[in-house]
């Protein structure tokens, strides 16, 4: 098949610009760190060494230690896994549910379609951080809750784009032709519609990754996201922030990691969008 080759061509186009290459390199590093955290990390991220608090960076502790003497580098690496699993799972949920709702909405009678759109509007009218706060207030903080909240806030995002795409394609001549030739409705949707609307949705998903990382880190920073001892970047920043008067190293290191990762995914997402179709971003 030509899939690997076209993927390679896409990659070459993404890396055509300096910003695209930067983004790709950062994304690759983050993904490797997330997938192989136990091997990339130098030590157990949760091992306490209270005698060795706020140690300066050294060969044993590449980025020094935190207020409990835990190895910062290893905690950062494991934080990558947390960030990526939250981001990817919530986006996967939002992608599936949102696309389904969007496609269905496009085929519903106008009244019902309006209802779906209003539900989208209601969800979108909650600033996602505030919605998260309201839900955490009720259910208490947990990783699962974070995933669900983020997924819910992103559903309208995918739903609207999917609906728009379907509407613009619905009466396209090639679909008309299929219908006249007697193709069944599910066949039209699965074989003709979905493949054609997938591109913009995938780009949307990639551009949502930094947004999700930010929300998760923000919630964890408030102590309302991932629970300890799991190390999220947000938790690391919070820990460092609490002990700012002892050492500025942990907070700076964790903030930088978060900043570089979100920047990397943003650059990558934009390069991907430009490589596939420069128009998509503008429609939003």
């Amino acid at each position: 098949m030509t899939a690997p080759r076209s993927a390679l061509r896409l990659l070459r186009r993404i890396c055509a610009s300096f910003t695209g290459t930067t983004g790709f390199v950062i994304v690759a590093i983050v993904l490797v760190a997330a997938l192989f955290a136990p091997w990339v990390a130098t030590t157990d991220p949760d091992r306490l060494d209270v005698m060795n608090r706020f140690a300066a960076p050294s060969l044993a502790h590449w980025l020094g230690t935190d207020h409990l003497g835990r190895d910062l580098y290893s905690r950062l690496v494991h934080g990558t896994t947390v960030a990526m699993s939250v981001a990817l799972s919530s986006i996967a949920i939002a992608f599936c549910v949102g696309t389904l709702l969007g496609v269905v909405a496009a085929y519903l009678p106008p009244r019902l379609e309006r209802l779906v759109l209003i539900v989208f509007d209601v969800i979108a009218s909650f600033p996602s951080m505030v919605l998260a706060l309201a839900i955490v207030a009720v259910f208490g903080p947990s990783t699962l809750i974070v995933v669900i909240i983020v997924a819910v806030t992103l559903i309208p995002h995918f739903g609207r784009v999917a609906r728009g795409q379907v509407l613009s394609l619905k009466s396209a001549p090639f679909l008309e032709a299929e219908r006249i030739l007697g193709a069944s409705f599910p066949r039209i949707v699965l074989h003709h519609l979905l493949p054609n609307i997938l591109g913009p949705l995938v780009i949307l998903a990639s551009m949502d990754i930094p947004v999700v990382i930010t929300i998760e880190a923000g919630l964890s920073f408030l102590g309302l996201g991932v629970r300890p001892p799991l190390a999220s970047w947000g938790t690391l920043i919070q820990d460092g922030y609490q002990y700012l008067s002892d050492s500025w190293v942990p907070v700076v290191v964790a903030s930088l990691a978060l900043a570089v990762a979100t920047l990397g995914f943003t650059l990558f997402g934009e390069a991907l969008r430009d490589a596939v179709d420069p128009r998509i971003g503008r429609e939003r």
Partner: protein
Amino acid sequence: MSAAGATRTDEMMRYVGSRLITTVLIIVGAMLLLFALTAIVPGDPATTMLGPQASPELAKRIIADMGLDQPLATRLWRFFANAVTGNLGIDVISGRSVTGLVAEVIPYTLILTFSAIGLAVAIGVPLGIFAATHRGSVLDNILAFVSVAFIAVPSFVIAIFLLLIFAIWLDWLPVLGASRTGGIGDELKRMVLPTLALALGWIGFIARLVRASMLEVMGEPYIRTSRAYGLSDRLVTYKYALKNACIPTITILGLGIGRLLGGAVLVEIVFARPGLGRLIYNAISERNYPVVQGAVLVVVVLFVLVNLVVDLSYSAIDPRIRHDAPDPGAPG
């Protein structure tokens, strides 16, 4: 294609009407959601709130105070009826009205948010125009990269860096809180870093948006017409093109205000400033549901109203009135 005059006002009224109805529907939907959330609190909310050691009598009193012994429908009705009259419930811990609590802190959040937007527009729009009119120049490229960086990095991370650099290392500005002495000068100084933390991402965002919109508009046939008649660059750029470029900018700005409010919550906490964010955050730690519910509702209503104002102002700029609202794509 309608004739000028009367029909235009009709169109306008119909648009405003449908927009108002949607707004009301969104607020009602948001209230239902908030009500549902508190209605499904796992376990008995009063005990959760007070802790297991609380005496049963106290728990009973709280339950009665909150009306939790009533049937669900009654509670829903009371929630709506009270909200309409401006009563958002009672803070079960201090016994004060939630409306009062919100009213006390809302100016802080509003001033912070709007000064951030003001700053971002004041800096971002000229930068965007500059980038569009100097397309491909070194400054344009630098600006493009810096904009992405500011957009991508979460505002609370920017807040932490600003705090470290300007308040701790350089010691130029006061670190935390709002002014206790009430002096305007002192309060202004304390506002600088939080405003900057919120605004930086938006400066980048607006600059990019204005640049992209300007470039797109500059390629439109009607701009070609203006050029064909020899109108000066200044007139073409600032009068004809800028107004067209404003439409997408304003829309997305309005939709992005939700993210800005979310960012403001975190920034308020980083800088230990009073505000809606802090109010909600503290209420969550105390499991003070009525306060969370009331304050979140206020944030949502605020956000929806801002969007309404933005939408209507945007239809005032654009005589054609577009109905399709694009998605927000704003920094956090």
